[in-house]
């Protein structure tokens, strides 16, 4: 399944998301035609159960798909839609028809059958008709909400990707179900962190390829700059961190069975976010001034790296939560926590 998925989306994204097409989306309208092509591929439904019309794929099957979405700077909420439909399926709800996104942060409450409150930094929340969220309180619920019923405040990340704040006042969900028993109320924040880690890993693979190629082409002092040890060592550092981001993401996706494994997902986001800053810095250093131009496509990846590392929890935010749980476990609990893949108080902490 994995190989078939990867080769299919690689061809699809290569067709759809050329650097020119990505750039055109940054200030343009919602790219409906591009979304339709992605929707026809079936991937937004990949993680929804077969019984509800999805493909029943596992997180492990789609890590490559999301890495490739990152590598091609796909200007669509495909990772968000996959996460949204996975959660709907887990709650026994049918996948959303059409484009759908997720709310990872904010405070929503469900009372008397209607939802009120704020959803923060919703990817493409001003363009996509539906959003999946988890409401707070003693009985958290998975809700599918119409974004059109919210008052929307525009926003955008460094890569000019839409990140809207949605204010709901007594809006009836399109669908709703209790959050599966024992699931954490921040599951969308956690899932969002995990998919951003994989997108970062893919984008780092992309900038590594660009930097390696450019270092082989650009001639100074009579030879390609890639023959200078100073450049070689910088690119080696970029490759190390790209490898770490890939490994951390792959491990998190593979470990996520029916549920996301919290420690793995958090470790992936922390390591990928750290790698993002280091990798973007090296890629720009290698490319010199040309990589700083709007014309060169490097910035399509680096501006996303600078965005994605902060979204669904920054490295610092997750590190603090993890660090508090590690300290609570104490020195004797440290190594068993690493080998068991869990720290007890990490499970309970709320955003």
């Amino acid at each position, binding site marked *: 399944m994995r190989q078939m998925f990867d080769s299919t989306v690689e061809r699809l994204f290569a067709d759809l998301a050329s650097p020119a097409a990505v750039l055109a989306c940054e200030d343009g309208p919602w790219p409906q035609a591009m979304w339709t092509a992605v929707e026809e591929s079936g991937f937004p439904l990949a993680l929804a159960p077969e019984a509800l019309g999805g493909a029943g794929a596992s997180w*492990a099957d789609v890590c490559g798909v999301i890495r490739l979405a990152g590598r091609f700077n796909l200007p669509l909420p495909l990772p968000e839609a996959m996460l949204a439909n996975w959660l709907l399926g887990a709650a026994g709800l049918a996948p959303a028809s059409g484009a759908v996104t997720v709310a990872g942060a904010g405070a929503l409450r469900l009372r008397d059958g209607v939802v009120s409150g704020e959803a923060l930094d919703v990817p493409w929340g001003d363009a996509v008709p539906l959003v999946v969220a988890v409401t707070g309180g003693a009985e958290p619920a998975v809700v599918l909400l119409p974004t059109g019923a919210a008052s929307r405040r525009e926003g955008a990340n460094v890569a000019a990707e839409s990140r809207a704040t949605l204010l709901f006042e007594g809006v009836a969900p399109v669908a709703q179900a209790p959050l599966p028993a024992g699931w954490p109320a921040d599951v969308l924040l956690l899932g969002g962190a995990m998919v951003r880690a994989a997108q970062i890993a893919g984008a780092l*693979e992309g900038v*590594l390829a660009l930097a*390696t190629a450019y*270092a*082989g082409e650009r001639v100074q002092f009579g030879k390609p700059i*890639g*023959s200078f*040890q100073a*450049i*070689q*060592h910088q*690119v*080696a*550092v970029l*490759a*190390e*961190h*790209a*490898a*770490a981001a*890939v*490994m*951390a993401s*792959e*491990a998190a*996706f*593979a*470990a996520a069975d029916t549920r996301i494994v919290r*420690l*793995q997902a*958090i*470790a*992936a986001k*922390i*390591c990928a976010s*750290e790698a993002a800053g280091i990798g973007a810095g090296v890629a720009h250093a290698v490319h010199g001034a040309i990589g700083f131009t709007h014309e060169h496509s490097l910035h399509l990846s680096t501006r996303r790296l600078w965005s994605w590392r902060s979204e669904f929890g920054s*490295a*610092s935010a*997750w*590190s*603090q*939560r*993890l*660090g*508090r*749980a*590690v*300290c*609570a*476990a*104490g*020195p004797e609990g*440290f*190594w068993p*926590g*690493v*080998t068991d*893949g869990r720290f007890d108080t990490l499970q309970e902490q709320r955003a």
Partner: protein
Amino acid sequence: MSIDQFTYSPIPPEAEAIRAEVRGFLADALADVPPTRRAESWMGFDARFSRRLGERGWIGMALPKRYGGADASAFSRYVVIEELLAAGAPVSAHWFADRQSGPQILHYGSDAQKDFHLPAICRGEQFFCIGMSEPNSGSDLASIKSSARRAGDKWIVNGQKVWTTNAHRSHYMIALLRTDPDSRRNEGLSQFIVDLSLPGITIRPIKDLTGASHFNEVFFDDVALDAGALVGTEGQGWAQVTAELAFERSGPERFLSSITLLQSLVGAIGTDPDALQARDIGRLTARLVTLRQMSLAVTAQLAAGRNPAWEASVVKELGTTFEQDIPELAEALLDVAPATRGGGEHARVLAYLMQEAPSFSLRGGTREILRGIIARGLGMR
């Protein structure tokens, strides 16, 4: 080279099943060992402890049963060695034989070498050191000059090795020597098992900056080796050495050298960390979780018979950076001065690892050499 070789390689349940037994044994065996001793990590030497591990079947366990091993999987061995390292067990005596010399002899050695050495390695009775670096050949290993010349049915060895960890308390050295006097660089090199009790061998410990002696200079003055001391094929020493580097560079000892300090730091900070402490402890934990996955991915590659030299270099570079960051962060996160005498346990563990840390990115291939290997794998060299 490929980043895609870093695939998720979980420890299989049958290997994971050993963990509790190892942990229980170590809790008992190391009950009286203080953190300052545990901090020595895989430089801690205790021949009796090694023999106890041998009795348990935890040395050379991936070697075939007919040679005293357990035919265990690479993952079973991984569980054992990471538990030993995490507990700060004194594993140095048998470490190099278990990691490197045993597999090397199994792969390239003669039947006589296998029969003589492997069972004794598994029992924790034969200790090995690795003779590679020379006074003028450190990172530039291919420039070594120490030689072995044929004389009748003997090999006569002359020259000098340096920075040889444990030479002064090992029984054998696997030495890389020049067997073709007219050869250049990495041609004409061969590997030998050198009995360190032979006449003509002088071993002088070199004190490191902490005052401890782990490494040595070793002089060979017309040392006569039997023909059977040659390992593998004459002239193929470079290829054989290169093949073992992936074993040497990807294991958990490349990121767990400071684990005792990290545990001590968590204890010293306590259960109510401030924001900076929580952030840095969390970040270190995340890096450890990821490094472990990367190391396991290379283990899976090695078990499948591949030579993941590039991937191993990535693990070692990131891993040694991690274990060097720990003393720096420990110093930054708590207002506790490192102490070599007096002070608390944490202050002494900090003092020890702060001083040891520079060696982490020197031993087994420097940071610069590793980055060169990584760049070559990317097609830049």
